[in-house]
Structure formats: structure tokens, C-alpha cells
């Protein structure tokens, strides 16, 4: 009898874990549907996938909001419960909490700016999660500290950019602008393609893009903020 109870318990555990596995598997895919904001339905496409080590990853597409392949934050898949957050470049911050139902829909609550609306998504195919761009390593000619100056609204701004390689993580940069006050920009991405260097600060919408000239030893480019582009030549700091 004891053996039978143990056997039943083991079977139950196996069944339960199988159910969990199926549910977690079922979260993987491309989900398409909408958020039913009153008088403004929002088309929403979510890609969710599990990596080899079992971690979940995801990205979203929101047509009309310039959101394509944006990585989701705080993604959690527990059985049939799925939750994640969206933060876009234009300040849309939302939290989605949903449940995968027996009919295969992923539905739940979309919360944004204190409002809530129902979302309903259906699986339409395998996941197409977009991985965010990663920083590349930079060449020796680019690595190091650079200084330059630009003028905005009649005021000079001094720029210091220090680029360092971090092994397999690619390069990182310190990006400091000194005007009437000193601003250290949070840098998200540093990339070098040939002689072209780009440094992006997503949160501020500021970027620097310039080409290294091996003859002059300068990086000639532009300081960019939204639609504003200001020429900025960087010279190696002495």
C-alpha cells in the first residue's frame, strides 16, 4: 500500500511537471493580437522563446509606435502565467500580466500610466525574438580618450569620450558633456564598423557618430540629439 501511495505521488509529480513543461513550452512562439484600449486598439506582437539554458527571452512589435523588436523587461513564465514589461524610446512604459488559456490564447491585463486594458493574443508561429544590438570591440586606433567641442544655442560644450574594450562584452564608453553643467551620459552601445564609430545613449536619445581618419588621427562626425546634428571633431586627449 505504501509503495502504491508513493507510486501515485510520483506519478502525480511527474504529471504536474509535465503539465508545467507543456505550459512553459506553449509560451514559446509569436503571439499576435491587440490591447483593447477604449477607442484605440493597439496591435501587439510578442515573441517569446526559451534559451538553451532555460532562461526566457522576448521582444515586442507595436505598429504605429516605431517599436520593432524591442526587448521586453522582467519577463517571467511560470506555468501558464506570463508577465513582462515594455519600455519604449518614446516613454511608453507598460506592464503585461497574462494567462495562457486552454484555448491557446494568451490574455490578461495591460497596465500603463495608471490605466488598465485587456489584451488578447493568439499564437501565430514560432518565435522570432530580436536580440538587441551588442557593442563591438574597437580597434587600437579608437581605444582611449578623445576630446572635442561643439556649440549649441550660442554656448560651447566640451565633450570627453573614453572608449575601452571589455573582452567578449565589446567596448564601453564614458561620454561626458560639459556646458553650464556637467552631464555624464549613460552609454548603451558602442560599435565600430570599419572606420565608423557610433556611440548611443538610448535614454537621452543622444548619439555620436564619426569616422576615424588615420591620416589626421581625428574622428570627424556629428553629435546627434533627435533631429539635431552638430559637427563634432574628436582629437585624442593628450
Amino acid at each position, binding site marked *: 500500500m505504501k509503495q502504491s501511495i508513493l507510486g501515485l505521488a510520483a506519478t502525480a509529480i511527474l504529471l504536474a511537471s509535465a503539465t508545467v513543461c507543456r505550459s512553459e513550452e506553449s509560451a514559446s512562439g509569436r503571439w*499576435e493580437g491587440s490591447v483593447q484600449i477604449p477607442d484605440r486598439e493597439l496591435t501587439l*506582437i510578442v515573441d517569446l522563446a526559451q534559451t538553451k539554458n532555460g532562461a526566457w527571452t522576448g521582444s515586442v*512589435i507595436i*505598429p*504605429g509606435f516605431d517599436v*520593432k*523588436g524591442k526587448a521586453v523587461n522582467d519577463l517571467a513564465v511560470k506555468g501558464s502565467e506570463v508577465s513582462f514589461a515594455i519600455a519604449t524610446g518614446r516613454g511608453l512604459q507598460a506592464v503585461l500580466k497574462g494567462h495562457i488559456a486552454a484555448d491557446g490564447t494568451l490574455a490578461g491585463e495591460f497596465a500603463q500610466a495608471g490605466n488598465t486594458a485587456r489584451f488578447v493574443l493568439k499564437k501565430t508561429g514560432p518565435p522570432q525574438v*530580436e536580440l538587441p544590438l551588442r557593442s563591438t570591440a574597437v580597434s587600437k586606433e579608437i581605444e582611449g580618450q578623445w576630446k572635442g567641442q561643439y556649440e549649441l544655442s550660442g554656448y560651447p560644450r566640451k565633450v570627453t569620450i573614453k572608449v575601452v574594450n571589455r573582452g567578449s562584452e565589446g567596448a564601453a564608453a564614458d561620454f561626458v558633456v560639459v556646458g553650464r553643467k556637467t552631464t555624464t551620459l549613460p552609454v548603451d552601445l558602442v560599435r565600430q*564598423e*570599419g572606420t565608423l564609430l557610433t556611440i548611443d545613449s538610448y535614454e537621452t536619445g543622444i548619439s555620436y557618430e564619426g569616422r576615424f581618419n588615420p591620416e589626421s588621427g581625428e574622428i570627424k562626425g556629428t553629435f546627434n540629439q533627435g533631429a539635431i546634428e552638430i559637427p563634432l571633431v574628436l582629437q585624442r586627449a593628450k
Partner: protein
Amino acid sequence: MFRGDPNHSGLYSGPEPRQFHRVKWKFPTGNRIVSSPVIQGKTIYFGSDDANIYAVDAESGRQIWKYATKGAVSSTPAVANGVVYATSYDGKLYALNSETGATKWKFATEGERRFEAKGLHGMQPRNQTIADPFDIYLSSPVVVQNTVYFGSGDGNLYAVDAVSGELKWKFKTGDVIHASPAFSDGLIYFGSWDSCFYAVDAANGKERWRFHGGEDPLVHNQVGFQSSPAVVGGVVYTGCRDSNVYALDAATGKEKWRCNNEMSWVNSSPAVVQGKVFFATSDSSLFRIVDAATGKELVKQQDKAYIFSSPAVVGNTVLIGVLNGTLEARDAKTGDLLWDYEVEKSKQNKGWILTADRKFNMPLLFPSGLDETTIAGTVREDGIGSVYSSPLAANGIVYFGSADGFLYALE
């Protein structure tokens, strides 16, 4: 490239899509698509108003790469010698590696802008300069003999070295150039919003001739070349906002004939195939076929809504997009509808933007004459998935973009 070849014939090869079977795939982007897809090998290239240039596998619809510009990519890319060229509302021409999307170079113009005028289209307030919400497209580049030619909102037609990105020459007109230049026999042909159509020497940018279209000093509605020309058999064919389609001698600019469309813009770029000119109109919503030599009417079909999209001719089938969110296939001889495909947003018809028979529901689309209302109206139009994009037919598949943000592949 836009319209399939440098002279913009609008002719495509491959099996005719005489029947619609199913949606093969659809690819979502972050904003409306007015760009037209082009194919090179097994890859589809197009732009989106979400500021990205995309490379997508033609078979699976999976993204190969995307490249972020800083403005809407409302132009159609050109692909030549392993390089993708496209213009963006950030005022730049981009040259990218076609396999990887890596930057080759960028060329900065003097800056983009839409056509604008005081009291435009009769909108209120009368003394306010209003940007034209119907100036939808950017000029799409044409690549010939290692040179990229394109127009810009700064009024210039640019010739840029295709390898280095260095300026070769520029030609200044009096207003926005958002039509796409065509190339034929050493000349570049294009229209401007200054009401003139130009032919310039492709080698040095010297003007050969210009042709004056209509003027509209009162409300600036019936003026400007938004349509892109086709050059076939020594004749230039172009639509104009002055409601005409013109046939001009390619060597001299002399008018051969004009076809009037009763106060309706012709923003659609004509296709010219086997002695026939195929085009469509905006407000009068006509699909027309005229004789290329004489301009004589061959077919006049009443469509349901405005058409900005340019026809693609594949054998005996003509494909064209309609702003009510529909892609149509018509018979090239009779103009009869063979099949159509309505995007989901159009079917939903939220806010009753369309009537029950798929025409624009004008009182609900543009409820007043304020400029804000008109701009909001165009946004509402986008909400039903308007098809501004010109279809591409390749290997029996039809590709097109919609204002719902999706690129569709139909088979």
C-alpha cells in the same frame, strides 16, 4: 529599384498572379509602410516609417537584418552591386551592405521637408503655412553607372558616387522633389513641386529641357509632380497633381499628348508596357489604360477609393494598391478585377472610415476644413491599412506594404 528598372517601366517578369490563394506570410514593422518592396536574389528589401530599412527572406518572411536610420524610410530602396541605397526623412541617403546591413557610407542632403503652402488645399487657417499630409513618399534612388540619383525635399536632384558616397553634382529646382528620377539614354528625368518637369544630363547635371505643368496659386492643390516618370521608346510619361498624365518627347520635352483626369491628382506613377500606359487617380479613383502613342482611352474602370500606388504589370495582370486597404489584381486588357485582398484593419473598418461598399466615408474621415482635422484624417486613413506601396511581383508571389505596418506576401 523602384518600378523595377532605371527607366521605371513598371514591368515585372515571372508567373502571373492571376488568382489569390493565401497569405504566404506577413512581416510586422513598427509603423506604416509606404515604401515599395524590391527583390534581389532571395531577399526582399524595403523601408518602413518606423525609420528602419529591412532585409527579409522572400520565402520565409524572416528578418535577415534591419538598419535604423533617424527618420521614416518612405522611399523604395535600390540594390546594385551588393549595396542597398535608400533615403530617409532624416535627410540622408544610406548605402548599406546588402548581405549584412553594415554601413558603407551616408550622404547628407540639405535636409528633408514636405511640400508646404499657405491655405494648402483650402485648409484653414488661410494664412497658415501648412505641410502637405498627402506628400507621402520620399524620392527613391536610381542607380546607373556607379552613380546614385535621387531627389530631396531641399529642392535638389543629387548625383552621388555609388562607391564613395561623394557628391558628383546637384541640380537645384524651385521646390520639393519627392518624385523618383528615371534614367534613359544618358538623361535623368524627374518632376518637382515647383510645377516643372526636368531632363538633365546624367554625366554633369546640365539642364537639357524643362516642361511646365499646371499652376494653382490659390490653394496649391493642382500643382506639382508627385508621380515618378516612366521613359519608354523615347517618350516620358508622368502623372501630375494638375490632374494630367503627360507624354513628353524624351529628347526635347515637347508635349505629345495629355490625358486629363477631371481635377484629380495623378500621384500614381504610370507603367508603360506593350504600347499601353497604365495609371490610376486619386479623388476620382479611376484605373485607366491609354494608348501610349496617342493617349486615346482604352480602359476606364471606376475603383472604390483613392489610389497613390503605382501599377505593376506582370504578363496580362496588373497589380495596384488602393488606399482603402486593398491590393487589387486586374486584367491588363479589360481592366476587370481578377481578385483583391483586403487587409484585416480594412475589414474591421474601425470608426467607419469606409462606407459599407469600401469607399471613403468622407464626413467621418474629414469632418472639418481645419488643417489639424485633415492631418488627423490621413492618420485615420492609415488606421484602415491604406496601401500606398507599389506591389512587387516575383516568382508568382505578390509583395506589398500597408499602412497597418505589415509587409504582405500573397500567393
